């Protein structure tokens, strides 16, 4: 089942993929920590300008993959390319254009938020010495910490710490931003703000890689998804395609469900009743054929849409054991 997803996602992507349009890529990535395989055979592709959500249960290798992508950890095997540069060897060429918040914010408790950022900014090659104070103030404003910048980091709430970490990633204009669990510890308002910032970055053309275990968050902000399970990528591709793949149903909402069923049966399109109308199978017929048949048959059609799996279902299907997956797909069928 998982392989079919990968094949479909790959095949239905824009056919001649431009090789240069990848912001980051890993090939055959493997990392072994003291005999434990953390990730294995990870082939991740992050297209330029995409917002890629990296999903996976705890311990599925998300953070390890990100750390190798950023050159913090040397892979046991495999290759990493970040903005066209091999990592970790060419890190000085790539990292100035990459902002990252990895494994939670790391700051000194006895310094204020502003002082912490200044220390970080001092090491930022893109900033000249005289630009540091302004860059720090801008980043603080952007994440809504302007008012608390003078307070010691020790006294920050979890949400404020997370925001300061984000400010550190956004100190200078980036080509790529990597956020590892950015909404950890944030309240709903804070989560919305992060989402807004991700949307802004996306609008600016910045590539964003965001790892999360919150599915709704990924569904709301991402254009692409990569699902990790047990240290390997089990599915990746554009979010819409992934959600539509594996579904061959067309949902037609109509007040006249019985009539619709009749018409479709006459046209030899298999269908059944759905909550707001009918679900037509489009493995043999195409969507326009279904609509034409219905309209010619005089059925009132209010809305037609492709059936989508919820990300949660998709995620569950991809990350469950085979035995569980079988049981789940039965449930899926019953529900559909």
């Amino acid at each position: 089942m998982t392989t079919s997803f990968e094949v479909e996602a790959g095949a239905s992507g824009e056919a001649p993929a431009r090789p240069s349009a990848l912001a980051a890529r890993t090939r055959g990535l493997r990392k072994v920590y003291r005999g434990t395989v953390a990730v294995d055979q990870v082939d991740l592709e992050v297209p330029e300008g995409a917002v890629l959500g990296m999903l996976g249960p705890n311990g599925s290798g998300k953070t390890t993959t990100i750390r190798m992508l950023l050159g913090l950890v040397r892979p046991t095997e495999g290759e990493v390319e970040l903005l066209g540069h091999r990592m970790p060897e060419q890190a000085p060429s790539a990292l100035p254009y990459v902002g990252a918040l990895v494994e939670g914010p790391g700051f000194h408790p006895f310094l204020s938020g502003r002082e912490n950022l200044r220390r970080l900014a001092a090491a930022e090659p893109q900033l000249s010495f005289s630009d540091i104070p302004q860059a720090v103030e801008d980043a603080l404003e952007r994440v809504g910490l302007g008012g608390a910048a003078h307070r010691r980091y020790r006294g920050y709430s979890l949400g404020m710490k997370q925001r300061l970490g984000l400010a550190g990633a956004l100190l200078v204009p980036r080509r790529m931003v990597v956020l590892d669990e950015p909404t950890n510890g944030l309240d709903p308002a804070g989560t919305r703000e992060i989402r807004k910032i991700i949307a802004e970055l996306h609008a600016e053309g910045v590539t964003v890689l965001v790892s999360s275990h919150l599915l709704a968050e990924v569904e709301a902000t991402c254009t692409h998804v990569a699902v990790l399970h047990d240290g390997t990528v089990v599915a990746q591709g554009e979010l819409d395609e992934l959600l539509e793949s594996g579904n061959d149903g067309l949902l037609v909402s109509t007040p006249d469900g019985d009539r619709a069923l009749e018409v479709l049966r006459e046209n030899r399109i298999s269908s059944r009743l759905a909550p707001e109308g009918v679900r037509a199978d489009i493995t043999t017929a195409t969507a326009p054929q279904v609509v034409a048949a219905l309209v010619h048959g005089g059925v009132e059609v209010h809305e037609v849409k492709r059936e989508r799996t919820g990300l949660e279902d998709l995620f569950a299907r991809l990350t469950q054991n085979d035995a569980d997956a079988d049981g789940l797909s039965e449930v899926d069928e019953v529900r559909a």
Partner: protein
Amino acid sequence: MTTLTAGTTLPATRRTVPLFRLYRAELRWIFRRPRTLVVLGLLAVIPAIIAIALAVGGTPEGPPGEQGGDSLFATAAGNALVLPIAALTAGLALLLPLVTAMSAGDAIAGELAHGTLRGWLLAPVGRGRLLVVKTLGVATFTLAAVLVMAVVGVVAGLAMNGTGGLFTLNGTTLSFAAALGKVALAAGWVTLQLWAVGAVALAISACTEHPMLVVVSVLAGTILSTVLLQLSAVDWLHPFLLPQSWEALVDVLRDPMPGDMLGQGAIRASCYVVIGLSLAYARITTRDG
């Protein structure tokens, strides 16, 4: 959308930050840390307390001129030159190495534990440069610690005895400038010994995430070396032990000054610095951050 930044060339920017800028940021971090200030304060109090104790305790019992701690302190009661040297000798035995270890432990292991080292590594600061900055930071802090003790020692000594009693252990009198020169020499020599400790401590610091482990290791190493130096059964080992020449600090108070032990100690310390920093470099460049 996807082509927006794909082909565009980026403005030519520096790939590395000037070392001095990083060093400045490092010093700012070290000297803003409350712990640093408390330690420097404690180091300042020690010579002052010794001076007060000597002033209150009255005249020395033993005759001046003998080697060893007690007589050295006793001499300090009537001699402004001796107090800073005596304080540094006492500090070098254990306290100053510990303070150095604390600083080295915070520099790498402590930053790693806080997750703050990542910020600089991702900026990026190359690992070699990172070690250079960390080494300079520890070296500067160590120098500051020694200077605090020496300066307070000189001031306390002068407050107690005035500039009148500036004579060496051999009884010759020194000019004020010559006396200050001797104190500066002692301070420089002690600093070099501490840099040796600091280099080894940085190597340990690069291997762990627990700054406390660095302090304990240096404590254990110092105590063990001191004990081994008492055992003649392992005298073949003595030339390799850093504290072997620490007692020689008192030599700066003699006239003429016997330079053998001091010179030997300086060479030994330099070897420690080279070996310690090499190990630290080997570790910091290969470890997962």
